[in-house]
């Protein structure tokens, strides 16, 4: 108690000083001019202490509750993000499916899809291309930067000014820039070795994801790249954010300007199939209507030519995702990295020689449905098919010679039973035996040795997609659908094997912008602040000097001039996350209602909280704290059970939906993003229109792939309805608008 009294005494001393008076330690007021008439005595020390403790307790409770909401919100965003990445595979497998089947419906062959997905043999030579770009004329009215090659610092500065002033670089210069970048990258090795000699500190930045403001903030705080100020950008420059193009332009410009001091690692989003879904493709097509496709084609090459890894002082390994227990830097140095165009394009399997005949096609067509049904019944996060050994390939009958020889992942989903035990990260086929569909039965054959191409592909995918985990071991990364989860032992082994002491990676959003794990051996660095929502997280970069001791720098881009309070930030992020969840619920309405009603035997309209949580988790396949979220998503009935229909209340169609079967509408809501991508691909001339016939075929294919039963009549009816001006073509943006949902609370506020 004595100590406390001493503290209180000094407290009053300080208080007196604040009041601008003498330093008496008496507890009486010291000449403070009192406006009040009544006596304003200081409270007794005991009371003050009690009050302080009370306030502190309550404050800590407040913070703890905010923290809990923040964690929930974070979980929601992350789950939805990774679930989206899993869904990406569906899109990719759909493209493969389309490639195979399109030939039958459209005699012209799958020109567009293959154009976008296959590596086309380019008719132009390097010189020819260069000349071609030079011939693109730039109008007089263009006020943006005009680049000359080789680039100078003036060019770089002009580019920076231009992006700040929101001027779009003309397509000609984009193509030239990309062309030069490609030429440059071709001569770079897969793994770049750097040194911090000359007492230079290297700055390492993580994911930017199209957030130009973050890049500009980094340059502002840390200086532009130069010989004195070297940088490594660790992948994921594009997708999600709206300024991906600007970011790659700036990064590539500095790359060409300071080739020895500016280094770019490839990330999992430097991948044209990921770009189709996550926004980069769309951004390019919107900003560059005429030359968009050429730019995308060139970007595809540039991305696949980006180096995979950087090593600093032979001690620090920098890669985008992580490692696996079979990562081998020596092997990595020898691979042909440009061949791995996309992590989602599985390499040719050595079974393409296998003659399967017509049975395969029949077998494959049936597989469309089990695949999607299999997904629905699976428990959370089990990702079949992606890593499973591919079974049959499509090169069967001669008519499909132009179709891909890729193995369709949808087949392999039947092979892999639920894997509850972690298996090593080699080609997972639990029984070690392939199941190959052959007419009506399955034939088991021993898996052939993985080809060199497959081994190379796996090495790259592991580097770009893996995440660290706390427990030892190396297991397939089922959450994301690619790469591994690697434990501290895997890190330890790899670092020892190559004489390294630190692994720096990115790939995961962290609230503070960075995180250290594996006992200080792994650093995650993430440079896109407010990634999920305004105020959700900081961004950071790390600097390494010759001592290789990391120094971290954090920042947060803020749109509003006034700093948001912690509570406001939590509210904004939470609101956003909850909306996303509500949309998911809405998009799965019929599945959810069916499941709810199974538990609701007496048809009361309500079920227990536990049952509700269980249904939602298994249908949406999102591993979230549903009980904690329940108050924000669904109402309770008077008896304390959940009124399950109330979870669909706050979301409604934005426009009156054309009269279609509910199933159809729901599918449209759910796959809106995928459809947008597909339509954009089909729209050759970027007019926003596709023909009715194209729409019909696409829709039919998509549905058969998903296993959704929609009869042709419904499709035709739909096509007829949305052809608003009856000219045989569909404005698909209008069409998709019809399937946007609105949140009732938003509407109320308007």
């Amino acid at each position, binding site marked *: 108690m004595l100590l*406390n009294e001493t*503290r*209180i005494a*000094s*407290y009053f001393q*300080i*208080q007196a000083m*604040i009041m601008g008076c003498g330093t008496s330690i008496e507890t009486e007021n010291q000449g*403070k001019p*009192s*406006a*009040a008439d*009544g006596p*304003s005595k*200081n*409270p007794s020390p005991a*009371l*003050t*202490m*009690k*009050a*302080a*403790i*009370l*306030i*502190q*307790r*309550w*404050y*800590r*409770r*407040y*913070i*703890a*509750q*905010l*923290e*809990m*909401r923040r*964690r*929930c919100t974070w*979980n929601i965003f992350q789950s939805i993000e990774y679930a989206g990445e899993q869904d990406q595979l569906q899109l990719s497998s759909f493209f493969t499916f389309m490639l195979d089947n399109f030939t039958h419906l459209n005699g012209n062959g799958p020109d567009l899809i293959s154009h976008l997905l296959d590596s086309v043999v380019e008719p132009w030579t390097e010189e020819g291309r260069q000349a071609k770009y030079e011939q693109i004329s730039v109008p007089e009215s263009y006020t943006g930067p005009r680049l000359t090659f080789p680039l100078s610092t003036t060019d770089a500065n002009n580019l920076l000014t231009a992006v700040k002033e929101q001027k779009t670089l003309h397509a000609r210069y984009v193509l030239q820039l990309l062309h030069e970048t490609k030429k440059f990258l071709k001569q770079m090795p897969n793994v770049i070795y750097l040194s911090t000699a000359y007492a230079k500190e290297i700055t390492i930045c993580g994911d930017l994801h199209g957030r130009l403001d973050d890049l500009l903030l980094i340059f502002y705080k840390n200086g532009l790249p130069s010989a004195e100020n070297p940088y490594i950008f660790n992948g994921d420059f594009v997708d999600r954010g709206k300024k991906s193009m600007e970011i790659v332009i700036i990064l590539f410009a500095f790359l060409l300007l300071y080739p020895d001091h500016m280094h770019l690692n490839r990330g999992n989003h430097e991948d044209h199939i990921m770009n189709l879904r996550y926004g980069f493709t769309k951004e390019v097509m919107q900003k560059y209507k005429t030359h968009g496709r050429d730019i995308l084609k060139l970007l595809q090459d540039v991305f696949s030519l980006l180096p995979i890894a950087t090593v600093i002082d032979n001690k620090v390994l920098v890669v985008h995702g992580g490692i696996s227990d079979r990562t081998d830097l020596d092997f990595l140095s020898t691979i042909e990295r440009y061949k791995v165009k996309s992590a989602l394009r599985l390499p040719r399997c050595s079974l393409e020689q296998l003659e399967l005949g017509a049975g395969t096609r029949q077998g494959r067509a049936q597989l469309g449905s089990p695949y999607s049904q299999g997904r629905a019944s699976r428990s959370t996060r089990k990702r079949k098919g992606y890593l499973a050994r591919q079974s049959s390939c499509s090169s069967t009958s001669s008519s499909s010679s132009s179709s891909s020889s890729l193995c369709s992942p949808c087949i392999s989903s039947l092979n892999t039973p639920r894997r509850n035990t972690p298996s090593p990260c080699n080609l997972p086929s639990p029984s070690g035996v392939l199941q190959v569909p052959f007419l009506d039965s399955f034939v088991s054959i021993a898996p052939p040795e993985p080809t060199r191409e497959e081994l190379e592909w796996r090495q790259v995918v592991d580097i770009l997609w893996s995440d660290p*985990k*706390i*427990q030892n071991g190396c297991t397939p990364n089922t959450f994301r659908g690619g790469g591994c989860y690697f434990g501290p032992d895997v890190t330890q082994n790899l670092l020892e094997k190559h004489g390294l002491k630190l692994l720096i990676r990115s790939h995961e959003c962290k609230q503070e912008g960075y995180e250290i794990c594996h006992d200080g051996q792994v650093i995650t660095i993430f440079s896109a602040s407010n990634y999920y929502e305004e105020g959700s997280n900081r961004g950071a970069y790390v600097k390494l000097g010759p001592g290789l001791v990391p120094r971290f720098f954090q920042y947060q881009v803020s749109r509003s001039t006034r*700093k948001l*309070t*912690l*509570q406001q930030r939590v509210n904004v992020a939470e609101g956003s996350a909850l909306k996303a969840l509500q949309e998911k619920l809405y998009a799965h309405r019929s599945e959810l209602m069916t499941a709810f009603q199974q538990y609701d035997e007496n048809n009361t309209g309500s079920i227990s*909280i*536990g049952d509700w949580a269980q249904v939602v988790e298994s249908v949406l396949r999102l591993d979230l*704290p*549903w*009980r*904690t979220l329940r108050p924000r998503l669904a109402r309770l009935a008077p008896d*304390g059970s959940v009124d399950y229909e109330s979870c669909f209340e706050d979301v409604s169609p934005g426009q009156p939906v054309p009269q279609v079967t509910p199933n159809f509408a729901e599918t449209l809501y759910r796959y809106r993003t995928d459809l947008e991508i597909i339509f954009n691909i089909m729209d050759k001339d970027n007019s926003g229109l596709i023909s009715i016939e194209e729409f019909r075929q696409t829709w039919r294919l998509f549905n058969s792939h998903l296993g959704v039963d929609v009869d042709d009549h419904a499709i035709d009816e739909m096509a007829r309805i949305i052809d608003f001006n009856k000219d045989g073509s569909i404005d698909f943006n209008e069409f998709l608008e019809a399937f946007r949902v609105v949140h009732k609370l938003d509407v109320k506020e308007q």
Partner: protein
Amino acid sequence: MAEFSADQIEDFKEAFGLFDRVGDSKVAFNQVADIMRALGQNPTNKAVKKILGDPNADDMANKRIDFDAFLPMLKEVDAMPKGTVDDYVEGLRVFDKEGNGTVMGAELRIVLSTLGEKMSEPEIDALMTGQEDENGSVNYESFVKHILSV
């Protein structure tokens, strides 16, 4: 001691899981107080430490506890006398020198950082942001509402 219902226990278990950053279905000793607060309790750090068996600083950081061991502790805290909204307002009124419904922000800051279970500067900043008017005074009734509106 009032018993928690089965539903409540399920809720607590789920929230407990949210704080497990390691993946072993446990939380560290130094997280226990915060989890209890997130679940609606209001203990002092001292009270929680006592319930944990007065661990030293090392144990606080490194020892972990699973949900089955946590639940009885939660019950014990739940049984403690709780403060009410009025207590909180009264606690602040102590500092209301002029009896006009406001306290000096500067004074509050000093008290909270030097007395009781001291708060750090970032904690105090987070608490006081937006609460002080241009004279540096805090209207404590609205302050209380602010804290309770989470």
